[in-house]
């Protein structure tokens, strides 16, 4: 497999000295364009994994490759979204979307000259996630689900090749969450970027991902890897099929084992 994101025998601990490691001998690899999900008990180092893959933290031991090159600085080709939408309240939704473009090259130097083009691009993206015409509103005027949609747009506006999602739907109600599953499914189908989704929700992982990694309790390691080969595009109906429920059940077993050994 031609890996786009590869971690080889990675160990990392926070702070100075020999703190108890957050992840230990962690190895995994994800192909380009693949949708990967990482599940595990809380505190298993899933967020550490995100920081390592984006170059916000560097491991104590082991190697990390993203896009074929070792990670030695923030990767710049990644978009991130979190459980908390973290939109800036003094900017309108549209201005929030443009924020990454004010940072990352080559958009940074083009933004002033080609603002109209970028604005229309942002508006198209908003329309795609069901926020057509809402760009002028401030984040506090949007509901939680709408804020999370805008946050997804912000993660995607610079067309990253790697999208990292850290429990992005965790704070939403069940119906909104399922709607957003479909939004992210369609965006992935259209753009074919590589996605790493960290989640606690096993149904979410099985519905969205091509490949699921189960992590152990701290220090985190991959204890199981499961390929999900339901044909795409997937419909929400498959979440009620026996094959789907079997996979969820199987993953549930891995997580339960991981918690027991903790």
């Amino acid at each position: 497999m031609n890996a786009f994101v590869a971690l080889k025998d990675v160990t990392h601990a926070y702070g100075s000295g020999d703190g108890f490691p957050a992840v230990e001998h962690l190895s995994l690899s994800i192909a380009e364009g693949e949708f990967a999900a990482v599940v595990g008990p809380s505190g298993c180092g899933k967020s550490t994994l995100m920081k390592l893959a984006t170059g916000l933290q560097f491991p104590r031991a082991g190697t990390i490759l993203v896009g074929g090159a070792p990670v030695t600085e923030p990767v710049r080709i990644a978009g991130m979204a979190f459980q908390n939408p973290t939109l800036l309240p003094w900017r309108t939704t549209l201005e929030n979307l443009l924020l990454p473009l004010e940072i990352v090259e080559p958009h940074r130097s083009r933004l002033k000259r080609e603002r109209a083009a970028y604005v229309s691009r942002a508006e198209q993206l908003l329309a795609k996630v069901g926020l057509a015409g809402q760009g002028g509103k401030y984040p506090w005027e949007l509901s939680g689900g709408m804020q999370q949609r805008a946050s997804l747009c912000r993660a995607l506006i610079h067309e990253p090749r790697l999208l990292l999602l850290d429990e992005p739907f965790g704070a939403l109600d069940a119906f909104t969450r399922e709607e957003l599953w479909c939004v992210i499914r369609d965006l992935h189908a259209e753009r074919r970027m590589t996605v790493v989704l960290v989640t606690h929700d096993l149904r979410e992982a099985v519905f969205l991902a091509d490949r699921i990694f189960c992590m152990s309790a701290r220090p985190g390691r991959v204890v199981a890897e499961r390929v999900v080969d339901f044909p795409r595009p997937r419909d929400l109906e498959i979440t009620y099929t026996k094959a789907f429920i079997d996979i969820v059940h199987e993953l549930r077993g891995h997580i339960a084992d991981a918690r027991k050994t903790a």
Partner: protein
Amino acid sequence: MNAEADSVSAAAEAEARAVREAAARARASRARRLMLAPWLCTIGFFLLWEAACRIFGVSSYVLPTPSDILDAIVAYWWPLLFHSFHTLWMTTAGFVIAIVFGLVLGLALGASRFVHAGVYPLLVGFNAIPKVAVVPILVIRFGVGWLPAVLTAFMISFFPIVVNVATGLATIEPEVEDVLRALGARKLDIMLKVGVPRSLPYFFGSLKVAITLAYVGSVIAEYNASRNGIGNLMARASADFNVPLLFAALIALAVLGIMIYAVMAWLERRMTGWAQRSQFAA
């Protein structure tokens, strides 16, 4: 049958409308009462004061009645106005210096942990010194005049600005920082795009506190080392045992204080309305 049903539904509708109107009237009268409350309280306070002085026969050397004070205000309206403006001017000058200095130092403290660790204890120590104790030193160096008042106003008021601006910068959500750093944002980018706008509500919030302190500072300095200003007027009135004038000066201070506070509060609402509407964590 049909007509009867119509008349029943019409009656129900009329009743519903009456209920709605009554509710609207109740809301409006509640709002009116709320608007009147500060005036009623203030007037009540002075009436109570007047009554207490008269009933217990308090000497006007101890506590003049509001009507005595009103007489003094009328008699001395020009000196009161003149010295109020002088005090306002000293306060504003010191306050403006405090804003500039407080912003620069606050940004430095918020941006660099090293500066924060190094300078903060010094700041706390300086802030702990009662500024009344500094006025004599200022007089020795600069003599009696406007400079001690401006400097005292500045010294007493910059601290809350520094602390608030630094806090706003230091409490950026780590996730926002991660999003931007992963894109290759430099420290300066994060400061300008997130830190500074984020600290603005803290900054404008601190101005309300700072202007009141600056005002205290300038009055203290005027009392001890000036030929002008409300502080100086009070020093002279107390030397003359002119207690009603002393109280008239206090009233002038209170009115001026409310005015400058209101200006700052208005400025805060105007500049950082987003923070109040989004229930920004302060």
